[in-house]
């Protein structure tokens, strides 16, 4: 049940957060001393004639020093879907760069989140129901360890293993074989899948234990609930108690956890992309950071932030919709 007030608060949070993100995004670059056009482009092209610099300045929107004027322009440009021009991929626009990289990231994220939440819930259900046993304690401790391993380290280790010991079993870099031209052919799709196995596996390996542990914890809290005792007393088979009583009640918090963990998994995906030279947003961000491509960094930040804000908003609404008890303020 969603009250109007609840909807209003959540919406206002989302909007305020978005505005803050915009302000950070606008202000930070302007606080950096020096004109990036000179520093960056000159290092890249060594020499540019003055009229060319003027042109570039106007392209990057740097010619009027008034902050307020710039902010207005920034907002106007933003609503026209213009996030500026990338230094590194010049003359590509930031939006273009993001658009070419985004599908790869969405593919990695979507697949790995689906797999890890599925595995997470199933495994969590199991260890939650058997909590307190020696086996469960061991598995939980192992999972806790897994969740605290940095994504990129696991990725590097996999790369090491597959590069040196399990050679030629799975490709360890790129998104598809360089000999192929992107198209909807079986060979190309197969190549894409093969290239994504290691990155996805890495992401799943580090993110599913977190879901499992959340599921386990909510299940353990369920164990103390009287309605489980009643279900047992009623003679309901254990399998159904787990499914309809314990897990049904435990899965809601996990669902929100999955959405909340989205930001974390996004970060993980970025690291994984960097390690496996996978041409997604993370790879673009890495390039942008290392080449000081400010417009691209800003654009990516804005895009991710807005995505996460929207994901959060949806999860809040979903939660209120799914739980019959919720009478949120």
């Amino acid at each position, binding site marked *: 049940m969603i009250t109007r007030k609840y909807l209003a608060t959540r919406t206002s949070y989302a909007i305020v957060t978005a505005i803050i993100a915009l302000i950070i995004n606008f202000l930070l670059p302007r606080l950096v001393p020096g004109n990036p056009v000179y520093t960056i482009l000159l290092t890249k092209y060594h020499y540019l004639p003055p009229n060319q610099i003027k042109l570039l300045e106007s392209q990057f929107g740097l010619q009027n020093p008034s902050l307020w004027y710039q902010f207005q322009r920034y907002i106007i440009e933003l609503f026209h879907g213009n996030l500026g021009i990338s230094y590194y991929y010049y003359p590509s626009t930031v939006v273009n760069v993001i658009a070419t990289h985004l599908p790869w990231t969405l593919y990695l994220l979507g697949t790995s989140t689906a797999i890890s939440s599925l595995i997470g819930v199933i495994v969590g259900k199991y260890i939650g129901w058997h909590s307190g046993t020696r086996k469960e304690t061991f598995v939980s401790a192992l999972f806790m360890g897994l969740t605290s391993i940095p994504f990129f380290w696991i990725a590097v280790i996999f790369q090491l293993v597959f590069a040196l010991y399990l050679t030629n079993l799975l490709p360890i870099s790129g998104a598809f074989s360089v000999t192929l031209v992107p198209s909807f052919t079986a060979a190309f799709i197969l190549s894409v899948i093969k290239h994504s196995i290691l990155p996805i596996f890495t992401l799943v390996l580090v993110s599913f234990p977190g879901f499992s542990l959340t599921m386990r914890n909510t299940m353990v809290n369920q164990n103390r609930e009287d*309605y489980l*005792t*009643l279900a047992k*007393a009623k*003679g309901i088979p254990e399998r159904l108690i787990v499914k309809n009583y314990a897990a049904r009640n435990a899965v809601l918090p996990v669902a929100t956890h999955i959405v909340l963990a989205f930001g974390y998994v996004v970060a993980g995906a970025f690291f994984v992309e960097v390690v496996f030279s996978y041409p997604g947003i993370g790879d673009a961000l890495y390039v942008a950071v290392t080449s000081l491509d400010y417009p691209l960094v800003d654009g990516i930040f804005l895009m991710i932030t807005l995505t996460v804000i929207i994901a959060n908003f949806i999860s809040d609404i979903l939660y209120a919709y799914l739980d019959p*008890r919720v009478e949120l303020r």
Partner: protein
Amino acid sequence: MSFPILSIRKLNTVFHTPSGDVNALRDLSLEVERGEVLAIVGESGSGKSTLGFSILRLIDSPGEIVSGSITYHDKDGDVSILDLSLPKLREFRWVNISMIFQSAMNVLNPVARIERQFIDTFEAHNLGGDYQARIEKYLQIAGLGKQVKKMYPHELSGGMKQRVSIALALSCEPSVLIADEPTTALDVVVQKEILSSIIKIKEELNLTVMFITHDLSVASSIADRLAIFYAGRPVEVGSAEKLLKSPQHPYTAMLLSSMISLNTNRDAFLKTMGGTPPDLRKPIQGCSFMSRCPLAEPACGTYDLSPGKSYGEGYVECIHPGRMAREVEAVD
């Protein structure tokens, strides 16, 4: 002649805690007669609830039933509950013995409609027939309208939830109903209504009711027989009427006299019982009430509990039954 429906013999239930094993039930033996309302009365820690949970084998870790037997005398023969395999136990539960819990607030699955919680049970026991009609029938017996079917637990008041759990308990037509403090969390007016419902249902459906409570007044207002529990055992069992009129065990007598009623003399102090119950982590020799009993004498410490003393149809564990009550009367 007695026709027990449940016979409990030498039952021992232990809780393994970090500070030692707590002997919650100590060699407990008790019969529940067919068709009676037997009230189990005791203070916290006396083992009264543990008994209810032990009968349905709902004792979870760190608790454990270590020895003894519980026999259910079915029309088709005896069932030894503690020897049932898990699938058999599952089939046995609820169809033969069902239970109402104290915490009406939390016994219903919060995310399922009321009807779902009935249907679950019917499906688990492969009951045939018209489920909806059946649900409505038992909701009505418990004093609820059929609109309740479609509701979620959080939409019901405390009294209504307890009625739903009564309806649930009856829905598989069990022979025995264990009611574990079903009205403790409720207000007096609703309490009386629920108690009255239970009595009515009991007569209509020819149930045997085991009513667990800490409240002697409540117990004596609905039970045919009372079993007074102390330190993991019944210290006195007898008909409600007789037990109230002439309690045999000093604990029963003192419990009765320390009760406050609407007629208690306001100008005098209340009668009290000093001391605390014994530590169930340690073995108890002889009578467990000895440390608090004004009549205690050395012989109480070596008193062999196993046979018990019967008087009439009752039972008492005391070497000088009835003396306490007589002395209290003499003082009054």
